[in-house]
């Protein structure tokens, strides 16, 4: 269970949000919505412990994530608005190396399956990702979700650059993650097409 307690954020002299209290239960996704500059990404980065809150705390199973440190990192898969992939490596190498560092230890076959699951055909798997389109690069980044065994997913605009088919694939993967008892926080401008009982919304107004 992920919980925020009186979370506040200030960037420079501008207060983005204050006193945010939410609780994300297993099997649900928190969709964070709001206008550009409303603090959605800052909120997500606070949930990853990449950004310190001005006030308040983020709790994972009741314990402050600043105390849990690496133990908390071991629970999450984070995909930011940057893809976190290397242009000089192939899609397969990117996934294998990243997954090895995060403890997912996939086989070559499961990496191939993950890339095919996001709609990347086999001939693309061994090309340097610099030759791929933005949408294809985003698919490579999101293929990590098919390899992830972590219970908590934190996703920043996962549907950006994706076409309708890929958006549906990612949504389906999110659904199966939630059905398996996982939880997620998604910053998005798009509607998360999941049953209402699975989705909780948080609107940040900036």
């Amino acid at each position: 269970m992920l919980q925020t307690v009186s979370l506040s954020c200030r960037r420079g002299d501008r207060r983005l949000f204050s006193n945010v209290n939410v609780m994300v239960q297993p099997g649900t996704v928190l969709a964070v919505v709001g206008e550009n500059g409303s603090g959605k990404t800052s909120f997500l980065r606070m949930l990853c412990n990449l950004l310190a809150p001005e006030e308040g705390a983020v709790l994972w199973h009741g314990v402050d994530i600043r105390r849990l440190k690496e133990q908390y990192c071991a629970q999450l898969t984070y995909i930011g608005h940057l893809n976190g992939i290397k242009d000089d490596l192939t899609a397969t190498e990117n996934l294998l190396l990243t997954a090895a560092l995060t403890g997912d230890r996939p086989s070559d076959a499961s990496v191939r399956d993950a890339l095919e699951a996001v709609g990347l055909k086999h001939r693309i798997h061994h090309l340097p990702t610099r030759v791929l389109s933005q949408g294809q690069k985003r698919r490579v980044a999101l293929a990590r979700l098919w390899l992830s065994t972590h219970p908590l997913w934190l996703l920043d605009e996962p549907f950006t650059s994706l076409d309708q088919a890929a958006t549906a694939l990612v949504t389906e993967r999110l659904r199966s993650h939630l059905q398996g008892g996982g939880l997620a926080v998604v910053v998005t401008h798009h509607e998360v097409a999941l049953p209402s009982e699975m989705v909780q919304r948080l609107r940040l107004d900036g």
Partner: protein
Amino acid sequence: MSQPGLWETLRGIIWRDLLLAIRRRSDVAISVLFLVIVASLFPLGVGPEPAVLRTIAAGVLWVAALLACLLSLGRVFTADYLDGVLEQMLLIAQPLPVLVAGKVFAHWVVSGLPVVLLSPLLGLQFGLEGEALGMLVLSLLLGTPTLSMIGSIGAALVLGVRGSGLLVALLVLPLYVPVLIFGAGAVTSSMAGIGGEANLSLLGACLVLSVFFAPWATASALRIALE
């Protein structure tokens, strides 16, 4: 799900950076070529007098090595910062200073080790021989990892700052001074026949200190840069 051990993660970090260096060989070649060109320009400018060249050899070769290391510092974190890989690294469930040490080691293998391996050839160009040549290699072997360690702090501090290349030089060059003095001093002492062991010991001490403290300082600077 089981988390990889510390050594496994460290190996992964180092392997990824080495693989990237292999894919982008031109980046590696630039700092090595820079070293060769700088070291070759001095004999052309100063003249071919062997006694003069031998006198300036230690200082010139050490300054060239130092500048070559400085030139490559931008590669340590900037690309990872821009493509989001650094963000992912901060979320790996292992202590960040250890991961930083792995990245700096990979940086040294790619930028410092070629300098060490090339140094006997460059030394010969300046008329160094025998013990002095060995001392040059040894001093660079101890000194260049220290340069990478200290440089990583500067590289992390200027991450995302405009004009960071110049700024990192201003930040780290003063910190490089002791390494330069001890490194060049080791070769000069050896040439004077008084042995360079004392300078080598000081270089070793600098290396130990930098290995213990630089990764922590760099990790803190990275966290600040990504906030």
